[in-house]
């Protein structure tokens, strides 16, 4: 994997597709996604792990793309919001966000949707408290969270 002068060629599996990217050892997954592959769904907010705007799924679990070195993600399955469905279809979580007006500026939305998607896979009918805990690492500056939580609870079909 190691090439000349620290440049590594990293094979990343993103949304089911293999990508071979040249990455310096310090390049983050977020930089590769946005700057190299044009997958701008993952947002760069704080770049410090605090806001959750950059959330992607690594082997189905939410992680911070801004704190993940791209080279360390080889061999894992990466899912971004672009990979949730094909074409213009929406997943149940996305549909619920639309129906509940859970999107305002949209900056936090990809991270929220991915975190919620991972939650519903583990816990198909979460209650309000479980949704709040799962989303507690994703900040939203617009919505006050209520509609987002309602959307995820509805997508799970509880109450």
């Amino acid at each position, binding site marked *: *994997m190691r090439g000349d002068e*620290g*440049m590594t060629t990293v094979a990343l599996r993103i949304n089911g597709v293999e990508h071979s990217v040249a990455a310096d050892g310090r390049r983050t997954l977020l930089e590769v996604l946005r700057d190299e592959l044009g997958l701008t769904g993952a947002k760069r907010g704080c770049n410090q792990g605090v806001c959750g705007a950059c959330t992607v799924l690594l082997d189905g*679990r939410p992680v911070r793309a801004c704190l993940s070195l791209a080279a*360390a993600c080889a061999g894992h399955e990466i899912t971004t919001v672009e990979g949730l469905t094909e074409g213009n279809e929406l997943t149940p979580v996305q549909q619920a966000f639309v129906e509940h007006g859970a999107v305002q500026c949209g900056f936090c939305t990809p991270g929220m949707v991915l975190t919620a998607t991972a939650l519903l896979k583990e816990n198909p009918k979460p209650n309000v408290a479980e949704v709040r805990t799962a989303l507690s690492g994703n900040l939203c500056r617009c919505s006050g969270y209520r509609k987002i939580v309602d959307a995820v609870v509805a997508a799970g079909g509880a109450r």
Partner: protein
Amino acid sequence: MTLFLEPRTVAEAVACFRDHPEARCMSGGATLVAMMNAGLADPPAVVSLRRIAELVGIAPAADGWTKIGGMTPHRVTAAETRLAGGQAIVRLAAGRIANPPVRNMGTIGGSISFSDPAADYPAALVAADAEIEVVGSGGGRRIAAQDFFVDWYTTALEPGEIVVAVHLPPAPRAAAAYEKLVKTEGDMGIATVAAVVEMDRGACSDLRVAVGACGPHPVRLRESESDLIGGRLDADAVARLASRLAEALDPVDDVRASSDYRRKVVPRMVARAIATARARAEGEQ
């Protein structure tokens, strides 16, 4: 340019630091990469421990000790029901760290190596009487948790040494309670208290209490604890231990709380942690 190295064994990892003395070790990366993003670290090489299979997982040993591999993420430790009795203190602390995505990334080895005094593991490991297993070019050694956390962001690790595991001694008849006071759920603690209590027919047979986030390293007063062994953990005795602990702290004024405030709340947190652990030890819950 930063070189990215992925050793497959601990021995290979140790060799990486011989070849690249300025390299930084990476476990979950949740702190190291944040520091690199902020320009606070610019290592010529990163030695990722991710591919070292022997570092992951929690394994009870026949003698009652439990080994937590350094690369075990907080999510796994927080869910490990075999961390029972007094060992449960580490599970309880893991469950209070940050939020689910950070618990998916961060590891016990990375957390204690960074040794943020406000982090959740240090006080829990001191109360658990844990031993930290480290390996370097000179071989391996075990360090008592109390001696591992030396100062602000400073551990007993020598250059080139890496944390490979945390070992917890058995305490099957004890119970644990973890108190973390936060401004908002998921934040680092204003103060934390880890308590392990064992009761024998109404008398205290083991007591270990460590306070975190109130100085450069966790504070535990073994002599004051032993004054309570054999007694009934009555309110006065607990209050004496709590106020001695508060006096021994070296808290700072920071964005989360003032030093005075920390000293005020810690005795109450100590009393609550001991009461909860005691109730659990006596089977009330």
